[in-house]
């Protein structure tokens, strides 16, 4: 192998290692969303219009704005013992 081919081989190995670092698990909980503001303790109203809009567009953002997302995560059996 020449230098470029070696480099390419090592890059591929690194990329494979990167992928093997972790395994994606199923996320069971639903994500719920509501807009927030400074000074508020996040305790979202889960049936807000904003949530409906998020469900529709799946986007959020804007200048100097807050949002709150809630979900429930359960550790799957096959993740046990790992990070």
């Amino acid at each position, binding site marked *: 192998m020449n*230098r470029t081919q070696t480099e390419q081989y*090592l890059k591929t190995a690194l990329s494979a290692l990167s992928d093997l670092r972790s395994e*994606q698990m199923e996320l069971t909980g639903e994500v719920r969303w509501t807009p927030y503001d400074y000074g508020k303790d996040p305790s979202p109203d889960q049936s807000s219009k904003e949530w409906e809009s998020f469900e529709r567009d799946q986007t959020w953002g804007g200048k*100097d704005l807050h949002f709150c997302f809630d979900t429930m995560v359960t550790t799957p059996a096959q*993740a046990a013992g790992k990070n």
Partner: protein
Amino acid sequence: MLRLNTGATNVWNADNPQVFVYLNGVLTGTMDMNHHELLLEQVAQAGKQYNVRFYAYSNYSQKTNFFHLTLHAVNPLIEAVYYDFKVAFEVAALLREDDERKILLYDILTKAALMMDLRNGQQEVEQSICDAGAWLRKTLEEHRSESVCEVYSIGHTHIDVAWKWPLRQTREKAARSFQTVLSLMKEYPEYVFMSSQPQLYQFVKEDRPALYKQIKERVKEGRWETEGAMWLGADCNLSSGESLVRHILHGKRFFKQEFGCDENLVLWLPDVFGYSAALPQIMKKSGVKYFMTTKISWNDTNKFPYDTVYWEGIDGSRVLSHFITTTNYVPYPELSVKRNFNTTYNGLENASQVMGSWQRYQNKDISKKVLTCYGYGDGGGGTTREMIEQGKRLQNGILNLPRVRFSTVRKFFEDLEQELQNKQVPSWYGELYLEFHRGTYTSMGAVKQKNRQCEFLLQNTETLATLASETAEMVYPHKELDAAWKLLLLNQFHDILPGSSIEEVYTQAAEDYQKIERICTELIDRSFGALSSNLSVKPCDQTQADAAIVWNPLSFGSDLVIELDGKKTVASGAEFLQDTAYGTKLYRVQQVPAKAARKLLLASNTDQSSGAGTVLAEQEKICVETEFYSATVSSTGGILRLYDKEQNRDLFAERAPGNCFKVFDDRPNEYDSWNIDASYSLKSFATTPVCNAQLVEDGEYRKVIRVRTKYRSSTIEQNIIFYLHSRRIDFETKIDWQEHQHLLKAEFPFQLFSRKISADIQFGNVERQTHKKTSREQAQFEMCAHKWVDCSENGYGAALLNDSKYGYSAEGATISLTLLKSGIYPNENCDIGHHAFTYSLYPHKEDFRTGGVVQQAYRLNCKPITFFAQNVGNEDCLPSLKLSADNIICETIKKAESGEGVVVRMYECYGCQTTLDWEYDLGECQAFECDLLERVEKQLPVQDGNISCVFAPYEIKTFLLKK
């Protein structure tokens, strides 16, 4: 582990979405585009449930973020090998093709890769990778040799206290970034983090006490370094000398009191837009030994020639300075097309930047140590797991390449100082001028004006409160004054005072300045109230008053001119000068000693006639005669002629008038409100007169010519004031500015033989060349000065004074005062609207010293304070300050921070050694000389109240008087 993808991967760190994460109601971590992973548990337990709440902030104008959350199980063994492999590979890839180390590393890595079974889903995978990893580590260890240098590495995040977000968001940014640090520290015992800016800790202390408590624990363990010396990263061009002192006083005190840590030794200002030549002395006299910035590498013209240097201030004080050299490694610098010498305080702690830090270092001959701080910053964020993982591999060392050492900043400087012993360390005299953000001396005129006014107001308030507590029954208002000072210091942050924040930040700043003014006005009233028995007066409403106390805030005796509304006249104590065009009356109180007061007796004014609003003459040009000048003023305000009768010469040439308004198209290539590009001066536009020049006052004290001129939709109105018996000419200016991206200057092309100017800075002055021979001089086409600049030839000169401006340009003997800069980014309305300020022309004999420029500039900036009362006796005496030398200025008289004694601070302003005899009559006192933090250094003899001492050129001295 949870991973969050918001889609905002190409958004700059300052704008990206940032998230607090609560696990089962407890703040556990943070996420943003650089921290998109959250570890739920070090060792996952099957079936364990988490209620996860993400409290997210967006500062990106488009609503384009999404929220894709995924759950992952991470194999820590494979991850460790991944980083071993990654770092060694990145190092090798950076080396030159002919470097034997590259060949060796590629060979080792290829062998390691061949040992791994990388087929996903195979049982053998984990074992083969672990075996290969062990072999890789062992082999690298065998080939390791002594490293060429050590790269001291400290975790860090730069948080702008306000900028593209308001202060209320900074409070969250600080909490988020600090939480990130705490989470990382749990995972990585070797992680060391440093954050300066006590103001941020104060926010966290107020908002999130539980988080603050954890920080304290980490500080105690020595893993969290609270260094930096100042209250926050203050602008060092514009803040006054006393403000800089207070930054260090409050900064050091906070860290010591809150965290019990050793005294701060490092002035840490990575991102400030130029460093005044007064700083080394301020640092030295505050016990700050070391200085660090990276910003000086942002010069657009000249690469700063040193990275390790003794920086020497105007007075000769030297501080060891090291400039972070973090930048990407370039394998073939000789082939680089772009000249780029920028370095960063937002380091990544990867192979390229660790190697680049050493490659970019210019003082390899004297030190084998460089510093890098790593972590995303500007809008906070900080270190990532990846950075620490990489740092750990680079800490082990690869071959003989630069080796990381996790360290504190203080340890770096102490080791550097040690290493420099007996070495020829270069030195740099004078300011560290940043050849880049030259517009920050001018942008947002309003905030600069309020800053200047409040700096003086706070000092005057302190002096009066000291008098009231020392000679009367007032309790010194330490708390109120601290609160007011801290508001001032907050707004001196390096994106607020320089004018480079969004509009909302300035709305808040205006409220803060009002608060400072309210506190000071109330304290001044309270102080005069307490002093009223000393002055034989009784406080009362102004309308009931039959006396006025006029206090001289200057540090030299002076005639004081006061202005009373038409309802009162002065019966005794002051001489009537003139009715003004605004219906007020001017009086002169003769020779009031420094910091002393004079009582005037008032009477009701029965003669209500006034010349208010009367125009006495109206012409295209108006001629004025005074004791000193024959002058002609045009309808645009230009001084067509200024013939100096004493000197028999004209200050301006024919067709080159003084006070000529010039408007420039100002559209810098980048950093709109920050920068002025050199090309601005290629083309200028004139203003046009709205009407004839008007003579509106023609008295025995002063003559006032009013001019109105316009540029497009903007108007400028000036009252040009000639005093019959003073050399000073004032330009009271009101502007309604409506033009975006313009620069407005007032030009004075003096007929003087001079190729340099002197410029006022904190606690002294500097000389600047106006003949641009070298590229360094050419790059200084816009300069910063405080209250005055002076252009003098042998025997004669002229100064421009101002009450709120900081930007100047000078070419030969032509000086221009920069009045406005109306950029559109990040504040689209910068400098749009009303402005009112005064600048003055002051021609004089000799140079700025003999010519009395310093004193005139103080007179313009520091007006007498008047207190109305009812007279009940003859006493009118407050202690005065007696100084035997004109060149010693005293701005500060305050109660000692300890509460015991009075602190008096003075400085020498002519650059010459001076023996001073002085006294301040507060009764019998012991006198001590202190450092700037009021720590006693030695006792001074006091003879009949007189203290004698010797000032070195430009020396600042702090005295403590104790009863």
